[in-house]
């Protein structure tokens, strides 16, 4: 059994997501790609036509017109547009997977909390940020075996893969990611930093996760926990690679007072699958993968719920 879906927003993210669904999803049936420009003016809609996917060119009106075809929408527009669309999706009883920074629904990271968020009856879920998708699983993996007092992530992204949305709202990235590190990752306090690097050829997306834990923490246990979660992430994001296993920094390695804590540093590289976007754009890839992973969990749960007698009726 499958869940029928539409993508709203045929930009880079929406187009990459389309290819991912068509390439590998067994439980998501893509019914329609919806934009606001005529097909000949939209590369994304043209790509959908080429793949034999129906399109809509009237934005939210196309959603309304065809709402009986699908149960789930991927929002790949912008935060302000999603804020306008969300009440309409709600009215039409469409499950919304929000890839924008609007964050109307709860922050959702597939391997950490998607099952729980979906099961709790939310019908609008947010994908945090690309950096959040890359790093929150690590914070969570450390926190489940050694309570994380403070977690900090840095994301290095190729300048070429940071679009105008990210650039004009860079604070939104750091604020949202930090909040996700706390709410989903489980750190008592979170901080996020983003750096854009213009080097040519473009760098792969790199992330560093620092977690501050008590010096008594069992580092081997942390490494096992991180390995486990990385393997889970890789099932959604094949290019997700731990490049530095949690390495210990103690008082001698830093220029500030660490008290009774140590710092565990984990580094991650994300290579995109290269369906639509080049492999260096792992930051975009991890978002579309997270959205698909979340939708697949919705599909799983709706199968179970159907057996139990209906979804979304509570």
């Amino acid at each position, binding site marked *: 059994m499958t869940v029928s879906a539409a993508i709203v927003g045929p930009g880079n993210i929406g187009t990459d997501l389309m290819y991912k669904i068509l390439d590998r999803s067994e439980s998501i049936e893509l019914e329609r790609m919806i934009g606001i420009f005529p097909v000949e003016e939209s590369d994304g809609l043209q790509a959908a036509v080429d793949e034999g996917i129906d399109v809509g060119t009237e934005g939210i009106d196309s959603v309304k017109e065809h709402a009986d075809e699908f149960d789930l929408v991927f929002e790949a527009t912008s935060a302000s547009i999603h804020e306008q669309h969300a009440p309409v999706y709600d009215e039409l009883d469409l499950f919304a997977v929000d890839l924008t920074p609007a964050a109307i629904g709860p922050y959702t990271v597939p391997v950490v909390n998607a099952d729980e968020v979906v099961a709790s009856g939310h019908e609008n879920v947010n994908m945090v940020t690309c950096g959040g998708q890359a790093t929150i699983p690590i914070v969570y993996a450390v926190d489940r075996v050694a309570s994380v007092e403070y977690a*900090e992530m*840095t994301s290095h992204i190729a300048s070429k893969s940071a679009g105008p949305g990210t650039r004009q709202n860079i604070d939104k990235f750091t604020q949202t990611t930090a909040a996700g590190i706390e709410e989903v990752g489980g750190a008592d306090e979170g901080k996020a*930093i983003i*750096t*854009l*690097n*213009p*080097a040519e050829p473009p760098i792969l997306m790199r992330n560093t996760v620092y977690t501050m834990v008590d010096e008594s923490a069992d580092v081997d246990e942390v490494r096992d926990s991180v390995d486990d979660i990385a393997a889970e992430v890789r099932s959604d994001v094949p290019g997700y690679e731990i490049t530095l296993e949690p390495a210990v920094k103690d008082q*001698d390695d830093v220029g500030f007072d660490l008290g009774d804590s140590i710092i565990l540093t984990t580094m991650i590289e994300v290579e995109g699958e290269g369906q639509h976007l080049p492999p260096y754009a792992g930051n975009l890839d991890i978002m579309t993968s997270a959205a698909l992973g979340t939708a697949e969990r919705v599909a799983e749960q709706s199968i179970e719920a159907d057996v139990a007698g209906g979804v979304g009726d509570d």
Partner: protein
Amino acid sequence: MTSGDADVRLVDMTLRDGMHAVDHQFTPEEMADVAAALEAAEMDVAEVSHGDGMGGSSINYGFSAATTEEYLDAVAPELDDTRLSVLMLPGIGTVEEIDMAIDRGADMCRIATHVTEADISEDHFVKVKDRGLEANGLLMLSHMAEPERVLEEAQLMEEYGADAVYVMDSAGAMLPSDVRDRVSLLVDELDIDVGFHAHNNLGLGIGNSLAALEEGAVTIDGCLRGLGAGSGNAQMEVLVGVLDKAGYDVNPDFFGTMDAAEDVLVPMIDDDEMPELDNDSLMLGYAGVYSSFLRHTRRAGEKYGIDPREILVELGEMEVVGGQEDLITDVAARLADEGAAAEAAGDD
């Protein structure tokens, strides 16, 4: 923007770029003492914050000894004619910190991005201008872009509302001709003031500042005793003396600035903190690496048994930019692995 009759505005960053030299460990009391000495010396501007700007206090860059709030509360009462500046790097700090700093007495905010990434700073300029303050734009690692590109990015900042734009030689990698090419183009094409920020890694801190002034820059950065990241910035008391000798009219008092350096700052600084133009910082300038990487690189070199210069050369080849301090550990660990592998191969 220069005050009174002065031809040049001098911005003292002892309590900001200087924070790199002390691993961001100045106490609020120490900052207050330095600020009082700068006020007494009639310094034009004193900049205060974590070395990487507000919000920079972190594992990646080092936690500061106190919060930005505590530093500003200590310093603001000491400054009257000397203007209080704060630094903000979009991607590290946010507009919330700009509001906080303005509420606590900041008179101006300087907003810094990598030289090719000015378009991440619009919100921050708008915020500073909305609050009615002076905003300066700083284009970091300006040696990494051609003059025409530096100009394009400077024009973006001008469009966002900047009152001045700086060519930042964050790696201390520029030769005087590099400075002249960039500053003169900006002076010709912009309607706002142009500034220059030196690091002394190639021994050109004062010389490059002079070159910038000759091309029309009117605002120049420095630190007392040449504190600052890497081998330090242009040495402020030297700047005051040299500019005076060169016939520029500057506000700060020469003796007062010297006294601030020698009597107030120097007693606060440990021997291993005072920047000098040693081999490692020379390599920063030669390889074109962000100056604040120096102390992090030394620590990583020691941990992994690698010559810091080798790490810096590798980072230079990778074209790392400011903010990527975490890659230092990555490179050191990789070089150590490669070294061990080569040694093992040599044993066969």
